[in-house]
C-alpha cells in the first residue's frame, strides 16, 4: 500500500519514519555495546520497526496502555521512551525507567508513558493486559490497551486464558502477535498447526486480523480500526503482524546455524526500512537529501544519547534491598 493511503499527513509519516530509523540505529549501537562488553545482552526488533511504529501510532500514551515484549523497541519509542532511556536500560543504569537497572536489556517499561513493565517469562503480559483493560472499563476511562507477544509465545496457556477472558468481558484490548517465523530456532510449522494464527480470534468471539508489518499504511489502518473498535466498546481484536527477524534471536544466538543462507539474504534485501525509504522517495514525501539529513541527525542523536547514558550513575549495591515491600526491604 502507498504510505499516503494511511491518510496520515506527510508530517506524521515523516515523524514515524524518524522513529523507525532511530530505532534501527539505536539497535545497531546496542549490538556494538554488546560486542565491546558494555552490555551483556541484546535482543532486537530489526525487521519489525515499520510495523511496530505503524501499530503504536494508532494509540496514544496519555490514555492508552502498552504492554510490549522484548522486540518492541520501535513501538516503545513511539510511546515516548527515549534512546537515552533505552541505553540506560542496556547499560544497567539507575535512571533506566524500565527497571532502574534491575532487569535485562530490552525489558521495557516506562511509567511516564504508560508502558507497563515486561518480564522475560513470555506471554504473562496478556493476562496482565486484561487486568489493565478491565480497570479502564470499570473505571469508565477512555483508553485502550495494546499488548504484544511473539508467534512462538502464543503456545503458552496464558495466551488462551487472556483472550478467553477478553472475549467474555468485551475488553478494550488489541492483542498482537508479531510473527517473525521463528521462536529462537523453532520455525512456524513446529510451533502451531495453522497457517493463520488470526483464525484463533473467532473461537473467543473477538475480531481477528492479519497484516503485513512491512506495509506501513496497511498496518496503521488495521490498528487504527482495532483501537477505535476497542474504545467504542466493541471489544478486543487479535492482530497477527508478519515481520522479519533480521538478526539472530539475541546476542547469545547465531541464526546461521539453523536458517538457510538464502532465506537470510532474501530477508535482508527486503528490509522493511529500505522498502519504506523507497516509498518515501517514490511518493515524494522526502527527497534523497532529506533522508540523508535525517540519518545524519539521528546518528548524532544516538551518539549523544550514548554519551549521556554512559555518564549516568549506576544503581548502588544497597538497592537490592529496596522496593521489595511497601515498607522497603524485608
Amino acid at each position, binding site marked *: 500500500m502507498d504510505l499516503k493511503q494511511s491518510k496520515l499527513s506527510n508530517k506524521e509519516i515523516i515523524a514515524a519514519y524518524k522513529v523507525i530509523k532511530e530505532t534501527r540505529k539505536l539497535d545497531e549501537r546496542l549490538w556494538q555495546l554488546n560486542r565491546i562488553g558494555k552490555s551483556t545482552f541484546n535482543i532486537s526488533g530489526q525487521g519489525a520497526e515499520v510495523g511496530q511504529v505503524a501499530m503504536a501510532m494508532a494509540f496514544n500514551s496519555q490514555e492508552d496502555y502498552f504492554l510490549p515484549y522484548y522486540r518492541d523497541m520501535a513501538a516503545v519509542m513511539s510511546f515516548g521512551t527515549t534512546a537515552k532511556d533505552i541505553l540506560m536500560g542496556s547499560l544497567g543504569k539507575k535512571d533506566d*525507567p*524500565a*527497571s*532502574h537497572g*534491575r*532487569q535485562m536489556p530490552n525489558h521495557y*517499561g516506562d*511509567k511516564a508513558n504508560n508502558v*507497563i*513493565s515486561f*518480564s522475560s*517469562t513470555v506471554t*504473562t503480559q*496478556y*493476562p*496482565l*493486559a*486484561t*487486568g*489493565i*483493560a*478491565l*480497570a*479502564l472499563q*470499570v*473505571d469508565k476511562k477512555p483508553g485502550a490497551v495494546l499488548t504484544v507477544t511473539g508467534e512462538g509465545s502464543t503456545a503458552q*496457556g*496464558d495466551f*488462551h*486464558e*487472556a483472550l*478467553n*477472558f477478553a472475549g*467474555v468481558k468485551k475488553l478494550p484490548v488489541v492483542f498482537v502477535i508479531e510473527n517473525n517465523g521463528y521462536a529462537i530456532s523453532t520455525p512456524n510449522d513446529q510451533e502451531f498447526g495453522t497457517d493463520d494464527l488470526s483464525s484463533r480470534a473467532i473461537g473467543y468471539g473477538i475480531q481477528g486480523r492479519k497484516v503485513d508489518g512491512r506495509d506501513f499504511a496497511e498496518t496503521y489502518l488495521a490498528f487504527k480500526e482495532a483501537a477505535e473498535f476497542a474504545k467504542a466498546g466493541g471489544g478486543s481484536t487479535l492482530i497477527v503482524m508478519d515481520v522479519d527477524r533480521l538478526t539472530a534471536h539475541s546476542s547469545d544466538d547465531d541464526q546461521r546455524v539453523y536458517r538457510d543462507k538464502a532465506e537470510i539474504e532474501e530477508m535482508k534485501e527486503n528490509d522493511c526500512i529500505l522498502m519504506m525509504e523507497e516509498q518515501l522517495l517514490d511518493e515524494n514525501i522526502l527527497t534523497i537529501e532529506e533522508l540523508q539529513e535525517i540519518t545524519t541527525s539521528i546518528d548524532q542523536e544516538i551518539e549523544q544519547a550514548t554519551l549521556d547514558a554512559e555518564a549516568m550513575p549506576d544503581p548502588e549495591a544497597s*538497592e537490592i534491598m*529496596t*522496593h*521489595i*515491600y*511497601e515498607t522497603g526491604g*524485608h
Partner: protein
Amino acid sequence: MAEKTYLEAINLAIKEEMRRDDGVMVFGEDVGGEKGGVFGVTKELAAEFGDERVFNSPLGESEIAGLATGLGIMGHHAIAEFQFADYILPAVNQILSETAKMRYRTAGDYTAPIVMRAPYGGGVRGGFYHSQSTEKIFAGQPGLRIVTPSSVYDAKGLLKAAIRSEDPVLFYEHKKLYRAIKDDIPDEDYTVALDKAKIVKEGTDITVFSYGMMLQFVLKASEKLENQGISVEVVDLVSLYPLDQETIVQAARKTGKVLLVTEDTKEGSIMNNVSSVIAENALFDLDAPIKILAGPESPSMPYAKNLEDAFLVNQDDVLDAMVELAEF
C-alpha cells in the same frame, strides 16, 4: 460485639472494605451471582456491589492471577479467590513471575496491591486435590506475603489489613475452620498486622508453633496440659512468609523446648523455615531438639476414611507430642 463464624468474619471483612473503597473488586470461580462461592464466603456481595465489582471469572487460574495483578497495577485492591488452594497451582507462574516481582523490578513504579484468597487444609474427605497445604510453594518469594488467620478475630482483621496493604498478599483460609469456629468479635473497624506472629497463650515449659486447624488442636492440648501442671506457650505464626523472626526466636528462647505442628508433609513445609530460624538464632537456648509434628511424607490426603484419618495429624498426636516434649 457479635458472634461470627470464621467464614462470616471473612465475608464481613470483604463487605466493609468494599464499602470503604470503591476500587475493591472480587472475582474468582463462582464467587458472584446467587452462589457466592462454593463455600459461600462471598455470598451477598454481588447483590450489594453489583456484577461489575463482583463477578464469576472463567475457569482459568493463571488468568485470575494476571487479571488481579493488572487491576492492582491500576490501583485496584482486587480480591481474587482460588476455589481451593490446590487450584492455585496453574497460577504459580503469574504469581511468582509477575505479582511478587512487580514492585521490585520497577523499583516501585508499578505495584500489585492485591489479595489472593485460597481455602486450604484437609480433613474434609476432599481427597488429594481438595486437602492440600500449598502455602509452602510460595514461601520463599520476597515481595509476596503469605498470611493465614487461625481465629475468627484474625479472619476479619487480617483480611482487612491484607486488602489495605500495598503488597500482594496470599490469604490462606483453613476450610475446616470456616464453620468450626465461632467467636465474638468487635463491631468496630480493626486490623491485624500482616507481619507479626501472635503469642496466643503464654507459658513457660514448652513453646508450640502452629497455624490453621492444627492450632486448634494445640490450644486444646495445652489446656489439658495446664491441668497437669505443664505450662505451654502457644504461637500462631499468622505470617507464613516472611516469618516474624523476632517473635519466633523470643518465644523459642523463653522455654527452650520447641514443637512445630503442621498438617502439611514435613520436609519442605513452612515449619522447616521456622526451625531453621530458631536453629540459627536461639540454638544455645534450647533444651531439646526442635521437633516437627507433621503429616506423613506421602503425596496427598487420600479419600477413604481410614486413609484420611491415618494421614491427618490429630488431636491425640498433638497432645502426645507436647507431653513428650514437656517430659524431655
